């Protein structure tokens, strides 16, 4: 799992969410492209994370300022070579 995946898993756990619930929360925010399979691929670094996702995650998970900062860092510097396959 990438650093991004680890952080996102932590943020989800802290809110008692699994990928199904996160997918639904993202859809509620108007982000329809994250089915469970895609989210798991993002967590594992099999897919490069969609550039729109951090913004939607911040809203869907109601992230604090510090959490938003950590997510930005993990998204930017912690995908560990993910993106051999680009999702967009």
């Amino acid at each position, binding site marked *: 799992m990438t650093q991004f995946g680890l952080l996102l898993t932590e943020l989800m756990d802290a809110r008692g969410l699994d990928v199904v619930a996160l997918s639904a929360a993202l859809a509620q925010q108007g982000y329809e492209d994250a089915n469970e399979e895609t989210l798991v691929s993002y967590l594992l670094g099999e897919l490069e994370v969609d550039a729109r996702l951090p913004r939607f995650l911040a809203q869907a998970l109601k992230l604090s300022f510090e959490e938003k900062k950590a997510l*930005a860092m993990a998204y930017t510097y912690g995908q560990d070579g993910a993106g051999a396959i680009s999702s967009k």
Partner: protein
Amino acid sequence: MAGFVLRTQNGQSRHTRRLLARVGTNGKSKPYSELGKLLDAMARERDVRGPYNIAHHLEEVAGYQVSGQGMSKYMYGETLPKPKFIETFAEAFELTAQERVELAWAYAYGSRLDLAHERSQVRDSLFIPQDL
């Protein structure tokens, strides 16, 4: 860049703030994106000016290949660079820890990091009760 650069409490140099205030376009009407403004200001602070020179610097220092035109598209927000580009930029321009955070924020959210909020968080974390 030779010489001493004063840094503010939040780590952003006064020079960067002045540059951010006055740069960010190519002199035409179309402005750079927030990410582009930040890339531009950080590169200028290190005496590298303009998309073509930034592209050249990245290739020379890090062996990262991007054309001047491609770099220009990043700066105007016409295309979004890959995370690898941001990481390479941070390394090639030897960004400080604070600058890396600012760049990551702009890249992830397309907006500027709220430095006032950042300062208040630091102040809060340093708070020492009087009765101790």
